[in-house]
């Protein structure tokens, strides 16, 4: 038995990738849950908002790189991130003014807003592909590893190597910072409290003098920031291809619903639950079990519950189970 190597193998292919992916899903799900909680509809355009934010950030990153501006060992994309957030916020505010506000004033049913958001999704998807193209785009620079396989093996003397990519470390750290800032904003600031009041009871909030248009505008700005950060972190960690963000919509929605729509804590928990489920169910545990099993008991097969191409089915299956047995989600969000 060699538990240390087993832990390292598990960390390398399950814990670290799961944590990074979970942080990306949690940020995406926070955006979905904020819109559901405050604007009261499921925004199907959120995946493409992430793609748009990432695209603008990539364009600024390329500009900075061509001007010789870098961020040392960190990716230049982090410098470009505020610009990406600003442009995405403008797009979302413009979309709200041109599209959603009309339906809000009509007091349209949430299902109508959902259909409208599908239309917005297609337009945003086309816009992103029109501007940057449908192909894979690379924008990551800076140091690639916090520690590489070689560094770890030399340091530890173990057979197994642990690799921590800079993008994975940045993803987790940025997600923690963003989540702390968001919770501080929602719980400690006057504007955040007015947003929560608006979410809890719109009529009472209006009676107490809260300006609904201001709440809506701030919500879109926060959603733009969350979507852009999530999109850029996903692009840095994996790669940027517009269609991938459309596919990401399912795990992002699954995370928000599993956690409880409208519950920010639930969105975070749901993101990590979905991410670790996807990674764990599709990982081949042969090696880990080989280290843990007594001599000669090492399994012959891969010990993989599902092939990797069923990854998205995992989030769908969890979604169905939660909707069947606990429709309000793990953290008792708004009923769906």
């Amino acid at each position, binding site marked *: 038995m060699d538990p240390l190597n087993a832990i390292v193998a598990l960390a390398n292919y399950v814990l670290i990738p799961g944590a990074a992916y979970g942080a990306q899903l949690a940020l995406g799900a926070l955006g979905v849950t904020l819109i559901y909680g405050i604007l009261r509809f499921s925004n199907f355009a959120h995946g493409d908002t992430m793609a748009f934010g990432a695209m603008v950030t990539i364009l600024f990153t390329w500009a900075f790189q061509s001007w010789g501006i870098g961020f040392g060992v960190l990716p230049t994309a982090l410098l470009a991130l505020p610009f990406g957030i600003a442009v995405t916020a403008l797009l979302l505010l413009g979309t709200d003014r041109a599209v959603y506000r009309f339906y809000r004033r009509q007091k349209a049913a949430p299902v109508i807003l959902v259909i409208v958001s599908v239309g917005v999704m297609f337009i945003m998807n086309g816009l992103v592909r029109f501007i940057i193209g449908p192909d894979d785009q*690379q924008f990551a620079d800076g140091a690639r590893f916090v520690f590489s396989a070689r560094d770890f093996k030399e340091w530890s003397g173990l057979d197994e190597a642990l690799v921590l990519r800079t993008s994975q470390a940045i993803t987790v750290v940025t997600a923690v910072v963003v989540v702390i800032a968001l919770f501080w904003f929602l719980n400690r600031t006057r504007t955040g409290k007015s947003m929560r009041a608006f979410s809890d009871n719109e009529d009472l909030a209006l009676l107490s003098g809260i300006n609904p248009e201001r709440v809506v505008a701030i919500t879109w700005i926060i959603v733009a920031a969350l979507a852009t950060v999530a999109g850029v972190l996903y692009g840095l960690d994996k790669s940027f291809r517009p269609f991938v963000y459309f596919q990401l919509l399912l795990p992002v929605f699954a995370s928000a619903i599993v956690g409880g729509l409208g519950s920010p804590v639930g969105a975070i928990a749901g993101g990590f639950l979905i991410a670790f489920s996807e990674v764990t169910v599709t990982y081949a545990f042969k090696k880990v079990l080989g280290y843990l099993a007594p001599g000669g008991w090492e399994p012959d097969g891969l010990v993989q519950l599902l092939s990797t191409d069923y990854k998205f089915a995992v989030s769908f299956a969890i979604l169905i189970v939660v909707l069947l047995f606990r429709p309000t989600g793990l953290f008792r969000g708004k009923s769906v």
Partner: protein
Amino acid sequence: MHLECRVVMRCDGAGTCAARDEPVTFTLDPMGAAEGGGTRYLISWRDTSAEAVSRDGRSFTFSEGAGDVQTLLAGNGTGLVWHRLTEGAAPSATVDFLDCEAPR
């Protein structure tokens, strides 16, 4: 065996190539003899793992699921070629040229 690689060039199925700089680390662990000759390996990269088969120890064929075929092929020196084919209504292929080292 660990292979610490960097994707230095990516080409699509039509032969259009673009320079890249993207890290990827592979782990190849032998699993025993394959049917019809060769060796079975557990291949892992990023958060993905699959069974690979090699007949000659220089090329490894594996799949992430139905409609997916991938090959890792030894090139000259530290070079590797990673070919990925996705079959279906609109088949697509990608060829990555990797620069690798095997620590220890």
